[in-house]
């Protein structure tokens, strides 16, 4: 793999607009998915025939 130039490093180091770091954003997205699935499951059980 080619050496990283300054521009590449700048691109890689760019922070997300919220939550400070990308791993925190990823964790948020996965937790959000878990909450959505839990809510859907609750709907399924509540309205089941």
């Amino acid at each position, binding site marked *: 793999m080619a050496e990283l130039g300054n521009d590449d490093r700048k691109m890689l180091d760019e922070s997300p607009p919220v939550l400070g770091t990308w791993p925190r954003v990823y964790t948020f997205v996965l937790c*959000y998915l878990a909450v959505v699935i839990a809510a*859907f499951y609750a709907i399924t059980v509540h309205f089941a025939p």
Partner: protein
Amino acid sequence: MTTIDWVVLFAWLIFLVSYGLWRGRGSGTVDQFLLAGKTMPWYAMGLSIMATQANAITFISTTAQGYVDGLRFVQFYFGLPIAMVILAATAVPIFHRAKVYTAYEYLEKRFDAKTRSLVSAIFLIQRGLGSGVAISAPAIVLSVVLGWPFRVTVLVMGGLVILYTASGGIKAVTWADVQQMGVIMGALVLALVIAISRLPADVSFMDAVRIAGAAGKLNVVEPRLDWNDRYNLWTGLIGATFLMLAYFGTDQSQVQRYLTGKSIGQSRLSLLFNAVAKVPMQFFILFIGAMVFVFFLFVQPPLLFHPGAMERVQHASEYTSLEQRHTLAFEQRGLAARHIKDARDKADRAAAIVEFRAAQARMSTVHSEAAKLTGENDTNYIFLSFVTHYLPRGIVGLVLGVIFTAAMSAISGEINSLATVSVIDIYRRHFRPEATDRQTVIASRAATVFWGLYAVAFAMLFGQGFGTLIEVVNQVGSYFYGTMLGVFVIAFFIKRVGANAVFSGALAGQAAVLAVAKFTSIAYLWYSAIGCLVVIAVAVPISYAEDKPRL
């Protein structure tokens, strides 16, 4: 369709194509034509990625899934946020750093030219077939609803797509998608509001939801694992994750969208935006289908939703008897739905559900008999029948126009990516490595026209016969994605595996998926996982065998 509907429909078509042409101006270099000069903001990329999937099929078929099968199809999208996180963390920085036009260009940097060519060829075959389905499937439905000959519909659709895609490249495609997405969501919200507002005065929104639940339409999550069941929690979380990884990580029609980002961060945000928005959006669209089902519990639906089939069945000798049985079953089903709504306790509700199911079964029998007489599957006409009969004048034209351009949006993305791979991975790699920037742009425009005409020709050749459209499109992809994903997983994460080993693995993976599809009943959502794992399982031992010193 009234005059005002036709005016609105054509005004929308003219606006969107003109807007695409205007936003696509200045695409005179390869970088501009294929990657929009890497200037795209995250929201444009994100909406464009979403619009490619929220295409005509979303309107026509996902709502029909909600009507017929309830909300369980949403589980198919559970793997999407997981895949987006993985891709944002891995593929996005790798592709950006490699400074490539196509995902397959990276494979030559990592392996060799034959691996790049093999995966490019798989993409061209798979996406080529997909582009045919993308144009023919909605054209069949729209031609019936608009009353146009099928070939005219295909030609208008294909011609307009070729015009703005060949002219403005990825920039035209992306910005047209952004407009499209806003109007799609507006039209869907309107359809839901009208379905609910037209319920009888004594049936509230919550009553409608409870009735939909009692009818088995709010079956969102199925936690039981069944390998042959297409949609459950596990096919969604595991099988669909592989499929989504393959689709967004290896399919040029998606990779090209986020390669247009001005930075890695912008590209990551476009994927994560989809990760957050897509599942609720699909839930919402399926929910509209479920609410249209409840609407038709109180307003008698036609015997068949397909207008042409309905006309034909009216000439059959069995028609009078079928229509009488249909009306009787509808009245009994509506009565049962009211009993569900008014149930005082659990026992009352259980009895009403039994009554409802019996009436529903009678309706389904009559419907099947009528459909059999005409040989038509009318599933894809349910939502359009609702739109054309119950939405206000002018809005009908707008919704049909949006469906028309939504089909165009999907096709434009596909022919743009097919042209990119044809030019970058085939033409410039194997035939004209010394081609100038200008020659490459001309070749890209010519390839766009070629693939557009190919899609049109495919659509002309393949008539009716598709089941639920969205499943056909996903199934075509599933046959090939596993192999492509396996190659990219090795490229990214298993550094010791070389070109020959991955090439053999890819051939084995493809053979395995085709064998599974032909000889087993395993649900198609597992194909990507199977293909990917076979590629790795074959390539890794071969790479070790290659390392052994020869005696």
